[in-house]
């Protein structure tokens, strides 16, 4: 027999069994024939003698049947009995696990949806974001000129198709009031790239995608439900988009949320638009679908060749450009990856703490069950059976716990959405079979982690025998293993607390940071516009002035301004500036963040002017105010007012006169130190421009008044996104807030678990040593000494745990490094605060059992003896 066969379960196949029995019958028949019977009779007698074949075939089969099922049922029954018999213990374990497994599954469901699952499009791993890079700019625009997109699409050999889009917020005015809608203009091949077809109606026709072809619009599922109550006959109805009647040709499926979840409408943008022909007009975001089997590296090499060819053909505009290709999923997930893994790491630590806690609980439990276990041993139960039974009990508890935890996981989507609306793909999070399986797997891991050690230790034969006999005379309550568990819990909790403390501190620092502007009492909003309006600057200027004047004339308004990009919210518009007065090659290039603002911006935001004057809204040459960081970085005290700069990349700026220097403001995010910035006086609103209004009272109280005023002068536009400016900061920091709040919650839970563990272990210890304490009290020990002794026992373990926790926290500080603001990972006040908190809570948890120990009545104890 080959050796490997012995590894497989031995099993007699029915065919083999039959032929074995047939052989026996044949032999018996032969025997009978030899005894002189006729063959028929001989056979009949043999069968008779042999007996009921089926019955003992069944018996043979029984030999091979493993009795796992039966044994499990028995174990399960006894586990249920055990849970009913000790409700407090069971409920503690179940709730602990429900919280730990539930929180873990909740975070996992976010990770699964956001990081692991592909984007909700067919063959989504073929989708790539394609950018153009200009090495002259450190952080250039990634937008692409439409004509270049067409070149790429025509010349490449690795993409099935490339398409582009841009989005703007416009007004839809078929209703009684104009409504703001988000429209994406999409280039041809849009549907080919996404491989998505309208759920209702049809795609754009070739006619609609040519210049001067018929208008057409596809609407989102959300918009269809909101505005048309899911009317199945919507196709053919008209929308009035910025005044143009546009027929609806279809409805997209609900899962299609691109470019973002706000997108309401998609309109075709014909190739060959006159303003799309210029190679320096970059305004498309480009998405491509790779051919099957093509790698990202191949696509990069291919497009690099294509772009090099274009560079030779159009040296002026294309020579310096390179092409960047990233999987669309990566650019969608962006920075949330670190936050999510950080949360998952901490919630897994929490699960470990819960497991450790349960190990301690089960150990003290199995000490109480020594009697039961030794009885079962003496009745001949094999150790394996007992271990299986104890594990079944733990598994049942874990299973119930993870079942309850699923409720928490089911709420994950809502929790994440309410804490961090900006998190990508957050609307895709929901409870599914994968999460249920994951919870199930968690409960198996928990069973093994927390059940195995107590089960194995609890069923040690020698131990159980000796304990059964010696429990009456036992004095010492030393059980280093249980104290080790408490120490581990404290250490893990300290690690989490240190992380949470640092995040909280940096959040607090962010709130305190000097912003350089005064954002209180600022109301911000937007007006629907389309990019087509930017063609007529004179009209745009009139429109902007009219709105700002109306706002200033409104009672309760102190001042009003516009800014492209809200101050304090990350917004990149960085370019290189050229100094017309000339600059030597050795000096650093002038790289600056650009802000297009009205002259009233500085007064409205209360950004101080340090030198010179505020920029002028003239029709003549534009003027520029630079901030102090700009002056310090590039001019170092040398005179610069009156110099002229020109933006290399910005479309419509001519040479501008530097007229003033302003204070530094945290324009590009509260957590970003001010960078060199140029404020261009541009009294022209464009899509995405923020109107900023300084109010006398609470900002939102003015929202309705302003809305009415604007409706009077601009009836065709919708005003939307009314919010105090502070609200935008908070939204911009929402991922930061998400991880801070959740980590703080996990850390608090961890601390409470560790304290429950400490309390439980100390109480158990006190119980074991009641007799000793009673004797010592009878011999004259002071109650204070007893309290001190137990208190110290608890605290000593905590101090060791703290030390270990700090070592862990120090080792894992790298994880936090990029997520902190204004505090170092070894911030002394935070870490000493954590120690203090842990020690105080630990002291409180130890005090109760210690006091109970000192209240032992010596007479009572001695009588019990």
């Amino acid at each position: 027999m080959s050796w490997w066969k012995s590894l497989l379960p031995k099993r007699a196949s029915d065919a083999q069994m039959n032929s074995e029995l047939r052989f026996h019958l044949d032999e018996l028949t032969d025997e009978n024939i030899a005894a002189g019977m006729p063959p028929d009779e001989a056979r009949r007698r043999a069968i008779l003698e042999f007996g009921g074949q089926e019955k003992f075939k069944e018996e043979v089969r029984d030999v091979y049947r493993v009795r796992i099922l039966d044994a499990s049922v028995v174990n399960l029954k006894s586990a249920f009995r055990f849970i009913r018999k000790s409700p407090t213990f069971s409920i503690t374990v179940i709730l602990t696990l429900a919280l730990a497994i539930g929180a873990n599954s909740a975070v996992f469901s976010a990770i699964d949806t956001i990081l692991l699952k592909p984007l909700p499009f067919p063959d989504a791993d073929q989708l790539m974001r394609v950018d153009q890079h200009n090495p002259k700019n450190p952080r250039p625009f990634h937008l692409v000129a439409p004509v270049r997109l067409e070149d790429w699409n025509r010349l490449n050999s690795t993409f099935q198709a490339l398409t582009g889009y841009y989005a703007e917020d416009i007004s839809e005015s078929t209703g009684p009031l104009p409504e703001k809608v988000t429209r994406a203009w999409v280039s041809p091949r849009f549907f080919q790239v996404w491989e998505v077809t309208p759920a209702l109606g049809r795609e754009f026709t070739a006619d609609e995608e040519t210049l001067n072809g018929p208008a057409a619009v596809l609407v989102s599922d959300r918009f269809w439900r909101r505005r048309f109550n899911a009317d199945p006959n919507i196709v053919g109805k008209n929308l009035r988009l910025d005044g143009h009647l546009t027929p609806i040709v279809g409805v997209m499926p609900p899962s299609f949320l691109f470019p973002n979840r706000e997108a309401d409408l998609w309109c075709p943008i014909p190739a060959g638009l006159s303003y799309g022909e210029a190679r320096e007009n970059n305004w498309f975001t480009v998405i491509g679908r790779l051919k099957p089997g093509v790698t990202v590296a191949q696509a990069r090499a291919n497009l690099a060749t294509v772009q090099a060819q274009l560079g030779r053909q159009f040296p002026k505009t294309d020579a310096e450009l390179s092409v960047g290709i990233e999987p669309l999923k990566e650019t969608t997930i962006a920075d949330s990856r670190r936050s999510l893994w950080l949360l998952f790491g901490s919630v897994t630590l929490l699960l470990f703490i819960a497991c450790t806690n349960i190990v301690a609980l089960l150990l003290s439990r199995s000490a109480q069950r020594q009697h039961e276990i030794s009885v079962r041993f003496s009745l001949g139960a094999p150790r394996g059976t007992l271990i299986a039974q104890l594990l079944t009990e733990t598994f049942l508890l874990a299973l119930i716990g993870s079942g309850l935890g699923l409720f928490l996981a089911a709420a994950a989507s809502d929790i994440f959405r309410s804490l961090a609306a900006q998190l990508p793909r957050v609307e895709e999070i929901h409870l599914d079979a994968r999460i249920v399986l994951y919870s199930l797997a968690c409960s198996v891991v928990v069973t093994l982690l927390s059940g195995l050690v107590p089960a194995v230790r609890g069923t040690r034969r020698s131990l159980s025998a000796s304990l059964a006999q010696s429990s009456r005379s036992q004095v010492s309550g030393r059980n280093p293993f249980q104290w080790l568990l408490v120490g581990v819990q404290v250490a893990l909790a300290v690690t989490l607390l240190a992380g949470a403390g640092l995040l909280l501190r940096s959040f607090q620092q962010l709130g305190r940071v000097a912003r350089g502007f005064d954002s209180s009492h600022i109301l911000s909003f937007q007006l629907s516009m389309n990019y087509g309006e930017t063609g007529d600057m004179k009209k745009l200027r009139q429109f902007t002035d009219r709105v700002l004047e109306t706002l200033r004339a409104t009672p309760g308004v102190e001042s009003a301004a516009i800014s492209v990009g809200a101050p304090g919210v990350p917004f990149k518009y960085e370019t290189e500036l050229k100094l017309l007065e000339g600059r030597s090659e050795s000096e650093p290039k002038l790289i600056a963040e650009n802000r297009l603002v009205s002259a009233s911006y500085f007064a409205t935001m209360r950004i101080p002017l340090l030198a010179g004057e505020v920029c002028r809204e003239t029709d003549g040459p534009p003027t520029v105010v630079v901030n102090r960081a700009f002056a310090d970085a590039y001019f170092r005290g040398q005179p610069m007012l009156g110099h002229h700069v020109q933006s290399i990349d910005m479309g419509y700026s001519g040479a501008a006169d530097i007229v003033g220097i302003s204070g530094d403001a945290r324009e590009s995010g509260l957590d970003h130190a001010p960078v060199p910035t140029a404020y261009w006086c541009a009294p022209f609103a464009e899509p995405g421009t923020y109107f900023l209004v300084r109010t006398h009272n609470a900002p939102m109280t003015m929202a309705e008044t302003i809305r009415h005023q604007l409706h009077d002068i601009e009836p065709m536009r919708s005003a939307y996104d009314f919010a105090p400016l502070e609200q935008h900061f908070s939204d911009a920091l929402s991922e930061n807030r998400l991880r801070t709040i959740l980590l703080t919650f996990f850390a608090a839970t961890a601390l409470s678990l560790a304290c429950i563990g400490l309390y439980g272990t100390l109480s158990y210890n006190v119980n074991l040593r009641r007799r000793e304490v009673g004797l010592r009290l009878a011999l004259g020990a002071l109650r204070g000494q007893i309290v001190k002794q137990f208190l110290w026992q608890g605290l000593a373990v905590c101090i060791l745990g703290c030390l270990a926790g700090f070592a862990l926290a120090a080792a894992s500080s790298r994880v936090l490094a990029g997520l902190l603001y204004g505090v170092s990972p070894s911030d002394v006040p935070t870490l000493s605060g954590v120690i203090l908190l842990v020690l105080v809570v630990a002291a409180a948890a130890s005090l109760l059992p210690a006091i109970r120990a000192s209240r032992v009545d010596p007479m009572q104890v001695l009588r019990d003896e």
Partner: protein
Amino acid sequence: MPTEKSDLLQGTLDMLILKIVALGPVHGYGISLRIRQISKEVLQVQQGSLYPALHRLEKRGWLEAEWGASDKGRQAKFYELSAKGRKQLESEESNWNRLASAVANILQTAQ
């Protein structure tokens, strides 16, 4: 039927099977035949107990089985003692001898 037949004592069937298989590879029919012959027709093994017992012993690894041709050329399953089975047989034999002599002692003393 020449003599009265006795039922086998619980647990002794395994030992008898092991003992007979120890003499050399043999099939199920051969085992029942030999038990009958050697015990001079006193012990008769029911096929209903024989085959479950054989499979049980095989599963425990005391017996190894292989298919082969019988004297008459029929396909039969031959059982053989494994090293583990040999050990088991030794311990069961010595147990049995102790028990038997103890019982015998009691019977003699009590007379």
